[in-house]
C-alpha cells in the first residue's frame, strides 16, 4: 500500500517562500492532480516528493516511511518531466531500460520488460531509434515508458503534455488515464490546465501562491468551491463575477446608474461588499436582467458563446438555444434559479446563499 502523506510542508528559496505550509494525503492508487496558476509552487511540491528538492519544513512520507532525507532512488518513484528529459545519446530501448541497468538487472529480463512496456505504448518499432528521430508525441511516450518499466509505487508527472498540440494532448490524456486504470499505481500529476485537472483527476488539489485552496473530486470543486479563487479557476469559460449587495431582501448589482435585481433573497440581512459568481451556462434571458453589451458572438454549433461586458467588466455567457445577437446589442440576462454563488469581496470566501 502506498499512500503519499504531505504534512505542513514548507519550501524556502532564500527569502522566497515558495511553499507556505501544505498538507494533503494521497491514497493508494489514487490519481491526484495538482493544479494552480503559474508560479504557485506545483513543480516545487512535486520535486520535493521526488527528492529533487530539499524540504525546508514539515514531512513527506511515501508508504509508511518519512522520506525527507531519502535520495530519489530509494523512494520507489518515477517521474515524467515536462521536456521529457530523454537521454539523447541512448536509443529508446536504452532510455527505457536505464533504471534497470543501474539496478544491475539481468540483461534478458531487462529486454523482456522493455519490450513489454514498448508493446503497451506502441513503441516497439522505435526501440532502436534515438530520441532526436522521434516526434514530440513519441518522445512523450518514451518518457512514460521509462517510468513504467521500473514499476514504481508512485508516478510523478510535471506538465507532461504541455509541449504537445491540442489533439495529441487530448489523446494522451485518455491514454494516461487508461494507464492508471491498468497499473493501479498512485499518480500525482501537475498541470496548470484546469481541463486536464477536471478530466483526469480522482481528486484535485488546487494550489495558489504556495498554499492549498481546496482539495476534492472534480465535481465537488466545480459545484462547491470554497472560495472565489477556486470558483474562478475551474471551469471553461470561467465563472463570471459581478460586484453585488443585498438590500431589502434582494440581491442587487449596479449596471450604469441602475440597480438590477439578480435574485430575491428575502431571508438575508442587508450587506455590502459581495461578489456574485455565475457560470456562463447558468444564464437565461430576462427583460429586467443585467444589461450586457454584446461584443463578440461565437457559435460552436452546439451552443453559442456570447462575449460581452457590463460597465466594462467582461462577461461570457453560453446559450444552448440558437438566439440571435449582434455586435453592440444589449442582452438582458440573469442567473437561473440557484445558478449563482456569493463571495465575500474582501476575503474571497464563499457565503451561503440560502
Amino acid at each position, binding site marked *: 500500500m502506498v499512500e503519499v502523506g504531505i504534512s505542513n510542508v514548507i519550501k524556502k528559496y532564500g527569502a522566497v517562500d515558495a511553499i507556505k505550509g501544505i498538507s494533503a494525503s494521497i491514497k493508494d492508487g489514487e490519481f491526484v492532480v495538482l493544479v494552480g496558476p503559474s508560479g504557485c509552487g506545483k513543480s516545487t511540491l512535486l520535486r520535493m516528493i*521526488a527528492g*529533487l528538492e530539499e524540504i525546508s519544513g514539515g514531512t513527506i512520507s511515501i508508504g509508511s516511511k518519512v522520506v525527507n532525507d531519502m535520495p*530519489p*532512488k530509494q523512494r520507489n518513484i518515477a517521474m515524467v*518531466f515536462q521536456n521529457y528529459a530523454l537521454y539523447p545519446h541512448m536509443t529508446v530501448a536504452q532510455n527505457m531500460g536505464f533504471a534497470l541497468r543501474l*539496478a544491475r538487472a539481468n540483461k534478458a529480463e531487462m529486454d523482456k520488460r522493455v519490450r513489454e512496456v514498448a508493446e503497451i505504448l506502441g513503441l516497439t518499432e522505435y526501440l*532502436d531509434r534515438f530520441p532526436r528521430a522521434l516526434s514530440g508525441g513519441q518522445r512523450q511516450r518514451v518518457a512514460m515508458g521509462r517510468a513504467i518499466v521500473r514499476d514504481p509505487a508512485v508516478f510523478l508527472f510535471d506538465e507532461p503534455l504541455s509541449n504537445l498540440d491540442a489533439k495529441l494532448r487530448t489523446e494522451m490524456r485518455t491514454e494516461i488515464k487508461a494507464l492508471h486504470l491498468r497499473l493501479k499505481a498512485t499518480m500525482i500529476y501537475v498541470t496548470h490546465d484546469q481541463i486536464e485537472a477536471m478530466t483526469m483527476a480522482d481528486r484535485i488539489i488546487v494550489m495558489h501562491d504556495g498554499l492549498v485552496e481546496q482539495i476534492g473530486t472534480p465535481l465537488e470543486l466545480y459545484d462547491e468551491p470554497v472560495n472565489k479563487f477556486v470558483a474562478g479557476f475551474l471551469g471553461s469559460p470561467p465563472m463570471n463575477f459581478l460586484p453585488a449587495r443585498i438590500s431589502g431582501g434582494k440581491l442587487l448589482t449596479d449596471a450604469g446608474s441602475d440597480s438590477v435585481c439578480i435574485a430575491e433573497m428575502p431571508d438575508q440581512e442587508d450587506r455590502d461588499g459581495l461578489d456574485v459568481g455565475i457560470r456562463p451556462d447558468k444564464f437565461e434571458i430576462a427583460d429586467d436582467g443585467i444589461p450586457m453589451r454584446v461584443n463578440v458572438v461565437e457559435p460552436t454549433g452546439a451552443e453559442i458563446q456570447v462575449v460581452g461586458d457590463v460597465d466594462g467588466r467582461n462577461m461570457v455567457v453560453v446559450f444552448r438555444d440558437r438566439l440571435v445577437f449582434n455586435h453592440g446589442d444589449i442582452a438582458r440576462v440573469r442567473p437561473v434559479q440557484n445558478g449563482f454563488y456569493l463571495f465575500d469581496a474582501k476575503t474571497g470566501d464563499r457565503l451561503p446563499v440560502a
Partner: protein
Amino acid sequence: MTFMLAGPAVYVLWLSFTVSNFGQNPQFVGWQNYAAILTDRYFWTAAWNTFIVVNAVVYIELLLAVLVALVVASLKTGRMLMFAVVLVPYGISEVVGVLSWRFLADPSIGLITNTLALIGIDFNWTLNPEAALVLITTISIWHHLPFSFVIIYAAIISVPNELYEAARVDGATKWQEFWLITAPIIVPAALLAIIFRYVFAFRMFSEVWLVTQGGPIRLTEVLGTYLYRTGFRYSDFGGAAATGWLMVLGSLLLAAIYLRAIYRSAFRDA
C-alpha cells in the same frame, strides 16, 4: 580566396622538390630532400619528441580541461569570475609566458626547481632532455588549457539539468551521472578539442625555441624547431619545405582519424 589559401602551399610543395639557398635559383631535385630528411637522425629525434609531447599535451590538457570545467560548472556562485581566471593564460603573450616559466623553473633560483628539490627531485632541464620536455609540455598545456576548457565547458553546461534529475530518479550515483550522461554527451566536443589541439601542438615552436632551442645537442628538438633550423640556420629551404609538408600530412592524417570519430559519434542514427 582559394588562390590565397592554396598559392603559398603549392609554392612550398614545389620548393620541397628543389635545392635552393639565398640568392640562388631553386634547382629541381625530385625526392632528394625527402630522402635526406627521412634518413636524418635528428629528424627522427624531432619526430619522436613531437609525438611524445603532442600526445602528452593533448590528453593531459583534455583531462585537466574536463576537471576544471566540471568544477567551474558546479560552482553555485562566482562562476563568471572563475571562468575569467581560467582564461587568463590565453591572454598572455607566448614569449612572456614562456619566459615566466623559465624564470620559475630556473635551475638555481627557480621557485619550482627549489620546491621540487625539497622533495628530492632534481629538475635540471638545462642538462636533462626529459626534464626539458616535461617543462615544455607543462608550458604548452598551461598556455592552451583555456582553449580546451572553453570547448569542454560549453559542452558541459549545455547538458540540460533535467537529464541529471532524471538520472538521479533512475538511481544513478554522481559517478554514474558523469560516466553515463555527461561523458558520452561531451564526446563530440572533446574530439573537436583534440583535433584542434593536435594540429596546434604539432606546429609547436616557441615553447621549445624559447626554452631549450632544441638543445642540449638537439635532443629536445620538435618538428617545428627542426624545420626552423633547417630553413633559417642551415638555409636549406627545400629541406624546410619538405619538413613542412611532412608535418601537414601528419596533421591531416590525425585530423582525418578524429573527424571520422566525431562524425560517427554525432550522426550514429539508427
